[in-house]
């Protein structure tokens, strides 16, 4: 394979119901750094139906070119339809790098395309960089439940592909004056391979904000004890304008739903403030929250690993502290 | 000589450990507090075949061995001694005598129901005036045409009221002494049979312990277990096996209490450091774990011998199982008492499980032969007839 034939950093611009997902903008932000180091350009690939207007947004956030495939087959995300389109884009434009969000769509689509292209894919990267000396693409990701970080390369195959979790990379500030090129691309679809039909999409009502978007998280672990214990946490969260999340043990115990789980097997969060209440801090949990701006941990065990990442550690019974804190904050907020 | 579990036994240990930790442990305090029979756990265990471990597949059992059975009782009792004794009494005291002394018809009729857990089994030997002196049986069985007619009372019967089938020991000919005692199979819904008052106990409070009442209870002639006059021997043989179950229960209680204590002493800080860091803690705990391991070897060795005895009826394991029970039950009492002590004031509260474990441990020195009875059995084996 002649690697020099492959150029430019591509981003799969994931959209849902016509709305470009935040992770796509974050990836464009990262792609800008990579493209600058390689002296190449950033391409966003926008697939869907009636989505062409979003191309401008992608340019504002840093894409040099946007490849738009606007087609009835792409109205909803279905693996095979999207694979056919994205595969043909890759074959036509020969990118050096393709980035996907590590979402339920990106993690479904990327491996399918990697296998069709016969190239490598690195999942859930937390760091992407171009080596200074050799200009090689290095992808770093956690493995073994976050216990170990591994740097991975894809030296002899192109494109080099990776998925990145939402919230890991930083978006650029949008610039409405940025200029970019919009390219319409028309792939040939083989409908005989469209085996899966979408029957319905159901959004489950969530009054609360997704924990990976929350600015403040009140997170509970084994020390909370029970379902009722989380009521106190919810009250605290309400007062500080945050969301309630939890460690894996409370999800496994059925006390909290899976979408509230922070950690390697849950969500990666990076709030401004993270309360770790009765969370011992297993490495898999730390992997999902240690990048938080400020961590306040309360735990009865002073040797709990959570204290190693806490900005403020308090050895005390959370069930005694939380109600008092909630009352006090109510007064502070009223001022 | 090989001290390792076989691959099958090891796979079984993993399963039963996970089951006990995930399904049994969360209910242990509740069933103790409420003195409630753990019906939901019994259903789950039935589904997995835990009620038929040493029963051959041809009779609906799992086709396992007595080592596996002892591991099951140990692991269940590590978290909940009540659950352990439900399985132990059912297996050792009801299914095994049918397996060893029953006719082919009796085995075919009763073992599939028992091994699948559809029926729980129980065993009635003890009477108000026949405890350690179990030959002083006052319950009588008289043959009347095609039926045996039973009259009398049994007390302290584990699984009473929950069981579908009872192995009952009764006097058929008082003039013959021990040789006038016979064994019978009584189904729970037999007219004339009823369950009396529940005992309120110190420990194993979730298990059912009650009186059995026989008031002209008529059972078919073919429900005689073994031969007429062989009942005392059947009872003693049954208890030889049962003691392995109780020894395993004691072992599990001891290990469970020690596990809790290791965890607690690592967390609990006094004088600025974890109490596990004090040498007194470490040395006492080292001694306790050593005793537990010794008890485990006695239990496994007795279970191994029982398995050997199935193939060769000249092998006698009475002393082995008596030693296992004597030692394991005394170790359980010692470990749980010290576990409470290590927990200090908290250990005396129901917030920590060692309080329950200490209460549960005591019964293992009493039932299926007190420690004194075990010493009699061991000494009898040692001295022979003197």
């Amino acid at each position: 394979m002649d690697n020099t034939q492959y150029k430019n950093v591509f981003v799969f611009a994931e959209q849902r119901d016509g709305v470009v997902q935040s992770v796509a903008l974050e990836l464009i932000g990262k792609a800008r750094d990579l493209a600058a180091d390689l002296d190449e350009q950033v391409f966003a690939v926008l697939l869907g139906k009636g989505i062409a207007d979003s191309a401008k947004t992608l340019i504002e956030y840093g894409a040099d070119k946007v490849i738009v495939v606007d087609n009835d087959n792409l109205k909803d995300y279905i693996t095979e339809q999207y694979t056919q389109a994205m595969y043909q884009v890759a074959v036509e434009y020969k990118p050096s790098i393709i980035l996907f969000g590590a979402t339920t769509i990106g993690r479904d689509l990327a491996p399918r395309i990697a296998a069709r292209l016969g190239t490598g894919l690195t999942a859930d990267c937390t760091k992407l960089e171009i080596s200074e000396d050799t200009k090689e693409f290095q992808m770093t990701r956690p493995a073994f439940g976050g216990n170990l970080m591994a740097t991975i390369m894809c030296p002899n195959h192109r494109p080099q592909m990776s998925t990145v979790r939402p919230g890991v990379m930083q978006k650029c500030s949008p610039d409405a004056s940025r200029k970019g090129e919009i390219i319409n691309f028309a792939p040939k679809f083989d409908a005989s391979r469209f085996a899966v039909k979408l029957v319905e999409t159901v959004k489950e009502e969530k009054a609360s904000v997704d924990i990976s978007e929350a600015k403040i998280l009140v997170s509970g672990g084994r020390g909370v004890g029970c379902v009722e214990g989380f009521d106190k946490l919810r009250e605290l969260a309400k007062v500080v304008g945050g969301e309630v999340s939890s460690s894996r043990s409370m999800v496994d115990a059925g006390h909290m739903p899976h979408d509230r789980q922070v950690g390697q097997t849950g969500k990666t969060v990076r709030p401004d403030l993270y309360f770790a209440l009765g969370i011992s801090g297993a490495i898999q949990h730390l992997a999902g929250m240690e990048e938080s701006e400020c961590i306040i941990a309360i735990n009865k065990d002073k040797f709990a690993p959570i204290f190693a990442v806490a900005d403020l550690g308090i050895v005390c019974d959370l069930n005694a502290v939380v109600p008092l804190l909630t009352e006090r904050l109510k007064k502070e907020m009223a001022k | 000589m090989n001290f390792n579990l076989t691959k099958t036994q090891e796979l079984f240990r993993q399963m039963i450990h996970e089951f006990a930790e995930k399904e049994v442990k969360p209910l242990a305090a509740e069933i103790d507090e409420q003195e409630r029979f753990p019906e939901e756990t019994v259903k789950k265990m039935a589904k997995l075949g835990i009620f038929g471990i040493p029963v051959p597949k041809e009779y609906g059992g799992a086709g396992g061995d007595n080592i596996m059975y002892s591991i099951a009782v140990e692991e269940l009792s590590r978290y909940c001694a009540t659950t352990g004794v439900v399985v132990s009494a059912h297996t050792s005291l009801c299914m095994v005598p049918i397996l060893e002394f029953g006719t082919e018809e009796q085995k075919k009729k009763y073992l599939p129901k028992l091994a699948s857990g559809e029926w729980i089994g129980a065993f009635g030997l003890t009477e108000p005036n026949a405890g350690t002196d179990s030959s002083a049986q006052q319950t009588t069985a008289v043959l009347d045409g095609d039926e045996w007619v039973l009259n009398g009372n049994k007390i302290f019967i584990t699984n009473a009221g929950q069981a579908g089938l009872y192995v009952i020991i009764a006097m058929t000919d008082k003039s013959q002494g021990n040789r006038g005692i016979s064994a019978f199979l009584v189904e729970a819904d037999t007219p004339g049979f009823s369950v009396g008052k529940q005992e309120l106990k110190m420990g194993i409070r979730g298990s059912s312990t009650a009186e059995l009442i026989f008031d002209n209870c008529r059972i078919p002639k073919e429900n005689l277990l073994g031969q007429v006059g062989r009942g005392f021997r059947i009872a003693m043989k049954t208890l030889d096996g049962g003691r392995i179950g109780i020894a395993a229960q004691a072992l599990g209680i001891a290990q469970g209490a020690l596990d809790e204590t290791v965890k607690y002493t690592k967390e609990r800080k006094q004088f600025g450091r974890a109490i596990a860091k004090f040498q007194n803690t470490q040395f006492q705990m080292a001694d306790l774990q050593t005793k537990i391991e010794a008890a485990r070897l006695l239990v496994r060795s007795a279970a191994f011998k029982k398995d050997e005895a199935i193939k060769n009826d000249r092998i006698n394991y009475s002393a082995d199982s008596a030693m296992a029970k004597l030692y394991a039950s005394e170790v359980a009492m010692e470990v749980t008492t010290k576990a409470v002590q290590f927990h200090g004031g908290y250990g005396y509260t129901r917030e920590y499980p060692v309080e329950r474990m200490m209460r549960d441990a005591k019964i293992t020195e009493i039932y299926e032969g007190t420690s004194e009875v075990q010493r009699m059995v061991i000494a009898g084996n040692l001295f022979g007839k003197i």
Partner: protein
Amino acid sequence: MKILVCIKQVPDTTEIRIDPVTKTLMREGVPSIMNPDDKGGLELALQLKDKFGAEVTVITMGPPQADLMLREAFAMGADRAILLTDRKFAGADTLATSYALAGAARTLEWDLIITGRQAIDGDTAQVGPEMAEHLGLPQVSYVAGLEYDGKSFTVKKQTEDGYQILQFEGKGLLTVLASAFKSRYMTVGGIVDAYDKEVEIWPADKIDYDESRLGLKGSPTKVVKSFAKELKQPGVIHEVDAEAAVELIINKLKEKHII
């Protein structure tokens, strides 16, 4: 119905610790377990067996020690177990792994292939979809529910903000979430029989393969470096009563301009 379930033996990553001095993984004493999502997949297959009398074959690629996990699968109710083991498979990344598994799948008969969503040692979620691609199968990932009417499969796919209902007829590949399929325990009878059954050991020669696509050679990605994660420097720890704790927290929140 015949179902092929791909399972993997993994170290229980919740038990893994980093040596604070050498910064390396302490693997000693860490138990090997059946990957949780794969176990969920096996559970789904066994539920289909309970309902429709499906024949369930489990397959794994790994070292000979994976035998233990296959015995566990037997004891849970699997009918047949295959261990793909060969030096030629060593060092495989997800592409090479999925290539080998797809090769093995081609020599077997099945109506449905089930894999776990992802394995807890790698967390890639790639082998299932890549395998589906090699075999040209439709896939549904993140499966949280399944119905079968004798003709078509109706699948519930978990998404970030709800779920989708997808449908397909004929053969397909599903990647399953453990949280949706609470796996059953091994039965005692199953355990007793597990070691009497045969685990079929398949070397590479049992499948059709292009050597350049197997193992390390067939792996486009290379791990060039691995290292323990740097933990954040700890802040101050206070052992205080609840009132004092509240004061400390309030001060911290003020310092961070949160209140």
